[in-house]
């Protein structure tokens, strides 16, 4: 039996559809519509906003300053996604080919941080990366060690260790975003690799390809949908990230979400903030559209 036509059982259909439709319209579509309308408005006085149909907010968003912030957000998100892919792919492989006994525990190990509060994880990283945190102490110890080895072989010792600034800069933002988003990448990769037909890998190895070549020529093309899914699942939240750049970034590492937040808190320019929000949403839609176009190409061939 396939899906039932809604007319065949109107009572049940009403019972399951009305609550859902009510909620999604009232508490999702209406708020979104309000943002969309406000993006065509202008400030009249301190609290009054006139929806005049102006495009000034969008024009202002194309100013060089905001374009660079959009560009930078994309660059940071893309870099974070790439690093997550490089770190996450071997992990996903390891989980896929782990023994029955270990696999669920490894998965749990990846998922547990994902369930832990984002703010707590960011705070934990901040503690570690601070000028007196363990990361700096570790680097300091390495530095001292190299210095000692150099004196041992009769060279000049290195100058004394100065703690490096690991926090409140672009490096910290990328590091923090990778830390937060790594589970997002590993889980879809694992889901794709798990469905893979292992005999194809065995065939490739039997026919003389090395492990690296097998991975590049067999595993990666077959797992492509999962890789694309992982990339999207990592890229989209990284692009809209607020907390990490806010807490771990410096003055020059603001991302688009921080600019939006400022319009609603300090700058008090709601229409402009609304326009930026919708530009961010359009960017997401564009990314998703590119992804679905990519999916259709092999079918055409």
């Amino acid at each position, binding site marked *: 039996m396939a899906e039932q036509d809604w007319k065949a059982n109107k009572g049940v259909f009403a019972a399951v559809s009305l609550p859902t439709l009510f909620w999604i319209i009232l508490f999702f579509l209406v708020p979104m519509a309000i943002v969309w309308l406000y993006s065509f408005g202008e400030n009249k006085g301190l609290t009054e906003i006139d929806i005049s149909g102006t495009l000034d907010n969008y024009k202002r968003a194309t100013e060089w300053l905001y374009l660079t912030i959009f560009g930078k957000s994309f660059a940071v998100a893309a870099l974070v996604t790439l690093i997550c892919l490089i770190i996450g792919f071997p992990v996903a492989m390891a989980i896929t080919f782990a023994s029955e006994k270990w696999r669920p525990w490894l998965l749990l190990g990846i998922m547990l941080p994902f369930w832990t509060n984002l703010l707590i994880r960011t705070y934990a990283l901040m503690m570690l990366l601070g000028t007196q945190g363990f990361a700096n102490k570790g680097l300091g110890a390495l530095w001292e060690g190299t210095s000692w080895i150099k004196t041992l072989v009769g060279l000049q010792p290195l100058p004394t260790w100065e703690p490096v600034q690991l926090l409140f800069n672009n490096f910290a933002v990328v590091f923090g975003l990778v830390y937060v988003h790594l589970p997002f990448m590993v889980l879809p990769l694992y889901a794709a690799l798990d469905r893979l037909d292992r005999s194809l890998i065995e065939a490739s190895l039997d026919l003389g390809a090395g492990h690296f070549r097998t991975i590049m020529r067999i595993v990666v093309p077959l797992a492509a949908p999962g890789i694309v899914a992982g990339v999207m699942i990592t890229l989209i939240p990284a692009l809209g990230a607020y907390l990490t750049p806010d807490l771990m970034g410096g003055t020059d590492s603001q991302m688009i979400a921080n600019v939006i937040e400022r319009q609603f808190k300090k700058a008090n320019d709601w229409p402009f903030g*609304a326009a930026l929000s919708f530009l961010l949403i359009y960017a997401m839609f564009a990314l998703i559209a590119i992804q679905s176009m990519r999916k259709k190409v092999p079918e055409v061939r």
Partner: protein
Amino acid sequence: MALFARTPVAPLEYSRTLWMRLWVGAVMVFLYAPLIVLMIFSFNDSKRNVVWRGFTTKYYEKALGNDQLVEALINSLTIAALATIVSLVLGAVAAVMLWRFRFPLKSAVDGTISLPIIVPEICLGVAFLMFFAAVNWPTDLIWPFNLGAITVAHITFCFPFVTMVVRSRLATFNREQEEAAKDLGASEWQVFRDVLIPHIKPALVAGALLSFTLSLDDFVITYFTSGPDTITFPVKVYSMVRFSVTPEVNAASTLLIILTVALTFVALKLQGVKAIAETH
């Protein structure tokens, strides 16, 4: 390599090769080391929280004696519990609607329900800020009704996840069971309660865990929807972190981490590690 291998490593046993083990080990250290350090330093007897100065539990007393922090934690747990209950009902009902019926504009409805997952948090937060301002949502209600705005916002981004999980579970449902129940005289409601609900129970447990943690975790959307009197735990911790890094934050964070781990293990006890892992 011979260090661990008792039997020779088969070609596909990638996870038994040494470099793979090192890689996975390094990633696990990367993921867990910051959290473990945070938990250890919650017992540190030092205000500045950078050098270990001896063991103490006084910051737990301080955190639990901080009325604002405790109130924020209670608020967060209340919101998470309410949001989970409503999300479960709404999410399950939406999943049944999409699974069972064919109706006009179905793909549009389907897409709209998954939109809150895709739309960036910041945009959703902004939308709720504007929405609650536009409808003049009352802000001076007594507890727990003053948490209404935040709870509504949380339900909106939690229930699509429940729908997703329940729907994938429903795909494995054998409709003949439903027909058999009906042949034996069960009403629609009885079929739903006695046949469908037991089948989707693992998805409901996973969905509940997901909703609860998503709600407890959320900072951005809450930050935009909370009033001055409705502080949640992440919002409170955020202001504490901005202000200064104290062991009190570590102590409070440790309590929340333990709560998360405990919840996960309750879910595991109910469903087993495999079922939970597979729903993601």
